[in-house]
């Protein structure tokens, strides 16, 4: 397979590509451990973060990743922008393109927007989350974090718990982790499970998903789900699906606990677990920066070469 043109999802990806990207991320993390956290790798490249949906951590993570490699970064947010004045999503992108940018990190509220953007733009497009569809750099940072603990994902059971139907994190992890040999389970209440999640086994039985799991990933539960009628009450969710210390005991001892953030303590996750020894939440944030550096490096340097 040739150089990566865009990172939209993992359709058509091979294991070797993922491993090469994660290997680059390891080198990037070494940069982050230096006193001078900057290399000239992307000097002269310009990147835009284009966020049609509010986000703080993903945007900061991408911007830092680019700056650590000496790229120039401009940011665009939908709120208060020309979009609010009625400009179309396509015209917004074409206007940015006219400013001679090399890559676009796009966060959007609707599935497929990153794919649409990739059709219109000449530069590289990184999908920073499109609706419920995909969040590939999140899955890469999750894989990176899991490999820290487990060394390999071959034959490992990873349980994803919560609002799976509405989760781009779950979709991207179910695409990516099996490429590395993992067996992915997704558990949640019936109203929050999709009809199909390629790459994962679906169950409403949380205990079955957690049994002997090598790692557990907890998803954020949004209160809107109650208004939509997908879930009767928060109380019912907590009773059935909150990941607690007692439930986590079914997983293998020492199984790492991941959460993509932002967390609702004591809703999807028993609050104390977030600060406990199993939690990898802070590790994930650090991994995110390294992984995003690797992605930008592969896209921009691979493309220019």
């Amino acid at each position, binding site marked *: 397979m040739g150089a990566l043109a865009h990172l939209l999802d993992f359709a058509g990806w091979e294991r070797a590509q993922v491993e090469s990207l994660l290997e680059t991320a390891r080198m990037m993390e070494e940069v982050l451990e230096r006193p001078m956290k900057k290399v000239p790798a992307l000097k002269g490249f310009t990147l835009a973060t284009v966020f049609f949906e509010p986000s703080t951590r993903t945007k900061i993570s991408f911007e830092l990743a680019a700056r650590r490699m000496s790229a120039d970064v401009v940011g665009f947010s939908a709120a208060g922008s020309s979009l609010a004045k009625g400009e179309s999503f396509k015209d917004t992108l074409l206007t940015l393109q006219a400013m001679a940018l090399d890559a676009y990190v796009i966060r959007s509220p609707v599935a497929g927007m990153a794919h649409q953007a990739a059709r219109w733009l000449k530069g590289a497009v990184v999908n920073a989350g499109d609706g419920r569809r995909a969040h590939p750099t999140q899955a890469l940072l999750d894989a990176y974090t899991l490999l820290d603990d487990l060394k390999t994902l071959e034959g490992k059971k990873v349980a994803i718990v919560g609002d799976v139907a509405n989760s*781009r994190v779950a*979709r991207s992890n179910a695409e990516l982790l099996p490429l590395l040999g993992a067996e992915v389970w997704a558990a949640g209440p019936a109203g929050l499970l999709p009809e199909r999640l390629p790459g994962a086994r679906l169950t409403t039985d949380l205990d079955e998903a957690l049994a002997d799991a090598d790692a557990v990933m907890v998803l954020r539960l949004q209160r809107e789900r109650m208004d939509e009628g997908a879930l009767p009450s928060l109380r019912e969710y907590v009773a059935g699906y909150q990941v607690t210390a007692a439930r986590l005991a079914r997983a293998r001892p020492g199984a790492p606990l991941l959460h993509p953030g932002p967390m609702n303590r004591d809703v999807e996750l028993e609050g104390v677990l977030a600060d406990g020894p199993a939690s990898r939440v802070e590790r994930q944030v650090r991994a995110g920066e390294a992984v995003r550096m690797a992605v930008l490096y592969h896209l921009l340097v691979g493309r220019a070469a």
Partner: protein
Amino acid sequence: MSLLIKNARLVDGSGELGRGDVLVEEGRIASLEGGDAERVLDAGGRWLAPALTDPHVHLRTPGQEVKEDLASGLAAAARGGYGTIVAMPNTEPVIEEPEQVRALREEAAGLAGARLLVAAALTRGQEGRRLTAAALLRRAGAVLLTDDGRTNEDAGVLARGLVYAAAAGLAVAVHAEDAGLRGSGVMNDGPLAAELGLAGNPPEAEAARIARDLEVLRYAARKSAALGHSPRLYVQHVSTARGARLIAAARAEGLPVTGEATPHHLTLTEEAWRGFDPRFKVAPPLRSAGDVEALIGSLERGDLSAVGSDHAPHTAAEKERDLESAPFGIPSLEVAFPLLYTELVEKRGLPLRVLLERMTGGPRAALGLEPARLAVGEPADLMIFDPGERRTVDPARFVSKARYSPWAGRELAGWPLLTLVGGREVWRDPALA
């Protein structure tokens, strides 16, 4: 002016009629065996058929002329081989008063293109509550009542509408989808929607609503029978195997229902969504390959006896929005016939006369119009098409304002080269000397 079309192969919904030289005088067919005329046109052995009738077109006029207007829409229809089209009333404002119907007909009469027939709203503002004045609308020339674009949620209102329209001699067309089951779905519900992370509109939303509407029709028929009337229900754009089966069963029982199939539901599947392209966004949504197979079978048997294009133009910019905010609708007036000729007749062996019947007699019967036949004395609403020449769909050349197409780049045969309305030429391709 009289016109002689020499050397044509004649075909209509009843079958092939052999070679003929069609003489047109005073807007009517004067002979199928030649005669003297002021002008002579050589059809070069191509097919000559009655011009098509499209019972389901969104002309966006008044109010949304930026998407389509009467001139562009009627010209596009003529290019597509249509002699008659029915404009839907989901305009701004909604077409619900007799004066609006008259004004549209008068404006269209001065334009070159297909004949315009007008559908009016079944309820005020298409809001599903108070009925419109069916008898006055009929007198003004309306041929159909419908709240198309909206779903008729109140079954009682629909029942009263059917009874009242029956008294005025009008059919009622419905967009049959249960609003609650449909929810915010943008594509067919099922494993693919789950995989793509998009909200699904389930096939059951259509089937449940068709089943309900057939019971409403049964009730309206019983009420009307006492008065010597018969209501007529027209189910637009049937997209599911289950919906088509329900209609077939009701027809077998004798219920006065007609089902419509669209060019897009007959030729495209939900798989198109893998490209995340809003050109394929339409309501009801594109379904599974199994549904497409079932619809083609239903069309052939006549369980679905009319093809309606549901030509639904939007601006190119609107169709380049994201998949949630892009509007529903596919424009198809200029490609419907060659598309169905190529995909159904040429590739799958559907008899040509069946396709023609579904695009002429079927919809005309549903609307209560005279059948379209190639016979002496009939109006010279005619079209010539060429099954031999293949052309690529190029939306940039459309005369419709909607210059995009889900079939762009597809090679099709059977393009209409000439369309006559009342003997008047409303479309002639340069290829026809």
